[in-house]
C-alpha cells in the first residue's frame, strides 16, 4: 500500500504531446480511476506510473519517494492489461507464478502460493491449462491472479474488462471492487467507460486531450462537473445542454433561453453580469414533465426498464427527460416541462468551465 503522486507530468512523442502537466495525488489504499475517451493520455499516464514509459518531464513519487528511475518491479506495482497479455506458452499456474519464479522463489513455494491465488479466483481446475484453452472470463481472472500473487504496493488496471461481454463485465467489476475492499491496496484503474468508473472508484480523474479536467468522487464528478466536457462525458443519458443569457432583476437572477425564463436559486452564480452568455446543463432526471411550463413536443420515447427516457423538441433544441418506470406517453404529443433550478449547471460558453457554484 502506498501513496502515489504525479507532479507536473508531461509526456511527448516528438512533436506530439500526449500528457500535459498532469498532477494527481492518490492516497494510500485509495481506488482511483483515470477516465477518458481513447487517445486522452490515460494509458500513457498509467504506463508511466508502472515504469513502462518515461515522462518527458515531471516527477512520479510512491510512498513519498521519487521513482522515475525505478523499474516496475522496484516500484512494486502489479498490472492487469487490456488484452490480458497472458504468456501463451505458459499454463495458468506458470503465468501466475512467473513473477515469483523471477524472484528466485523455490518451486514448491511458488506452487503453493499459486494454488492459493488460483483457488481464490476459482481457477484451481484449470491451473494446468494453457490460456488459449480458457474462456474470456477465466483469462481475465488469470490476469488478475498474476497481479494478486505479487502482493504489490499498487495495482494498476489498464482497461481490463474491455474485451468482456456486458454481464461478465459487471461481475468482474464487482469482483475487483470486493478485492479492493478486502486487500485495501492502492489501485489505479484506466477505462473509457464512465459507468464502470462511477461504479468502482473512490475517486475519478477525468482526462481530456492529455490534461486532467477534474478529480473527484463519483458524486462530485457527476453532480458538479468542473467543465462542460466532464459534464457531457459523465452520465447516461448524456447531460442536456442549451445556450442561455443571464438576466438580473434586483436580487433575482434568471437564465433566459428563447422565451423561457428560469430563475436561479440565490447564490448559484453570485457575481455574474447581466447579459452574460452561458451554457446551461441539466441532468435528465431533473427535467420534469408537467402541465404547464416550457412547451415542448415529444420526439422519442425510450423505456429502459427502471426509467423511461423521453426526448423533447423545444424552442432551443432538444432535451432528454428521465421519468420513473414505464411512462405512458405518446410520441408526437405536445407537452410542457420544468427544470429543477437547484440542479442547473452553468458553464462559461467560451472556456467551458463551470461558473455556477455547484
Amino acid at each position, binding site marked *: 500500500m502506498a501513496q502515489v503522486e504525479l507532479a507536473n507530468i508531461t509526456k511527448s512523442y516528438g512533436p506530439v504531446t500526449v500528457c500535459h502537466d498532469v498532477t494527481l495525488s492518490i492516497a494510500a489504499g485509495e481506488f482511483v480511476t483515470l477516465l477518458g475517451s481513447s487517445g486522452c493520455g490515460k494509458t500513457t499516464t498509467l504506463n508511466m506510473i*508502472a515504469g*513502462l514509459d518515461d515522462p518527458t518531464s515531471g516527477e512520479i513519487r510512491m510512498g513519498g519517494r521519487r521513482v522515475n528511475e525505478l523499474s516496475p*518491479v522496484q516500484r512494486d506495482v502489479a498490472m492487469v492489461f487490456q*488484452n490480458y497479455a497472458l504468456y*501463451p*506458452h505458459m499454463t495458468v499456474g506458470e503465468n501466475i507464478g512467473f513473477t515469483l519464479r523471477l524472484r528466485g522463489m523455490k518451486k514448491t513455494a511458488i506452487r503453493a502460493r499459486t494454488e492459493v491465488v488460483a483457488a481464490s479466483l476459482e481457477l484451481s481446475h484449470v491451473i494446468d491449462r494453457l490460456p488459449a484453452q480458457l474462456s474470456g472470463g477465466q483469462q481475465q481472472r488469470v490476469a488478475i491472479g498474476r497481479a494478486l500473487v505479487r502482493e504489490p504496493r499498487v495495482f494498476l488496471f489498464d482497461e481490463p474488462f474491455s474485451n468482456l461481454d456486458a454481464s461478465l463485465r459487471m461481475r468482474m467489476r464487482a469482483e475487483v471492487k470486493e478485492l479492493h475492499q478486502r486487500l485495501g491496496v492502492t489501485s489505479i484503474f484506466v477505462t473509457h467507460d464512465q459507468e464502470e468508473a462511477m461504479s468502482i472508484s473512490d475517486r475519478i480523474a477525468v482526462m481530456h486531450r492529455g490534461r486532467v479536467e477534474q478529480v473527484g468522487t463519483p458524486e462530485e464528478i457527476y453532480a458538479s462537473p468542473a467543465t462542460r466536457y466532464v459534464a457531457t462525458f459523465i452520465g447516461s443519458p448524456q447531460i442536456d445542454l442549451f445556450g442561455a443569457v443571464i438576466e438580473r432583476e434586483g436580487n433575482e437572477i434568471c437564465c433566459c433561453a428563447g422565451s423561457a425564463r428560469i430563475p436561479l436559486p440565490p447564490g448559484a452564480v453570485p457575481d455574474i453580469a447581466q447579459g452574460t452568455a452561458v451554457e446551461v446543463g441539466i441532468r435528465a432526471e431533473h427535467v420534469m414533465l408537467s402541465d404547464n411550463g416550457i412547451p415542448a413536443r415529444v420526439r422519442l420515447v425510450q423505456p429502459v426498464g427502471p426509467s423511461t427516457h423521453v426526448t423533447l423538441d423545444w424552442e432551443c433544441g432538444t432535451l432528454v427527460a428521465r421519468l420513473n418506470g414505464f411512462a405512458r406517453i405518446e410520441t408526437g404529443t405536445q407537452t410542457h416541462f420544468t427544470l429543477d433550478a437547484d440542479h442547473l449547471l452553468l458553464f462559461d460558453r467560451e472556456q467551458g468551465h463551470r461558473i455556477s457554484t455547484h
Partner: protein
Amino acid sequence: MRRASIGARLADAGVLVGLIVFAVWSIAPMVWLVLSSLLPQLSLIAQPPQIGLTNWTLSNYLAVFGSAAALGQGIINSFVVASFTTAVALGLGAPAAYALARLSVPKSGAVVLLILATQMLPAIAVAIPLFVIISRLGLIDTRLSLIIVYLSFNLPIVIWILRGFFLGIPLGLERAAAVDGAGLIRTFWLIVLPISVPPLCAAAVFAFIESWNEFFFALILTRQNAQTVPLVISAFAGQYQTVFGQMMAAAVISIAPVIVLAILFRNHIVRGFADGMLKG
C-alpha cells in the same frame, strides 16, 4: 449445420484439389530426380526416356560412392558449415532483430535498411575483395572461411525475418513481463523467444539450407579440404560429358540430410506451436 454443408463441401473439395496440385507441383520434378538417379545414361537419352522398372539400377549410386568426388566429406563439410552458420546467425540475429523491433536503437529504421542493404549487392561484386581478405587471413580452404562468409549473408535475412515477427508480438506481453519483474534480457529470453518458435524455425531452416547449398563462394574459397556438397555435385557436370544419372544420385544423397531434418522438425518448422496454443 446442414445449411452450410454444400458450400462447405465444395470448399473442402477445392482445398483437396489445391493440395493435390500443390503436392504434384512440388514433388513431380523431384520424382524425376529420383527416377533419373536410378536410370542408366542410355535410358535417359532415349526418346522418350525409358523409365520401366527393368531399367532401374543402383549403378549411379555405386559410382558416386566409388568416384573420386568426395561426397561423404562434402556432406560432413556442408553439415558443419550449415549448422554453425545457422547457430551463429540465430544467436546474433535474434537479439538484434528484437532490439530493432522493440528496444531503443538510435535510427533503427536506417539500421534495418543498412543491414538489409548488405544483401542487395550481388555476391559477384564482393567475391574478389572477400577472397582477398580470406586469403590474407590464411583461411582459404577452411570451413571457417565459409562460415564467416555465409554468416554475413544469412544474418541480415534472419534479422529481417525475425524483426517482422517480433513487431507482431502484442506489446502487452513484454509489459506484463516487465511488471512481473523481468528485465529486458529476461523478457526476451523467457517470453519472446519461446513464443517465436515458428519464425525461429523458419529462419533456421532458411540459414541451414542456404548454407548447405551455397555454390559460388564455396567454389572460390575452398580447394579440396573444405569442399561442400554443391561443389561435389557440380563435379559430375564436366565440359565434354555430364554424367546425369550420377549427378542426380549425388543430388538425392545430398538432399537426404535436409529432408531428414525437415521430417524431424516438421512440426516445429511452423506448426506445433501455434496449433497447440490456439486449437482450444
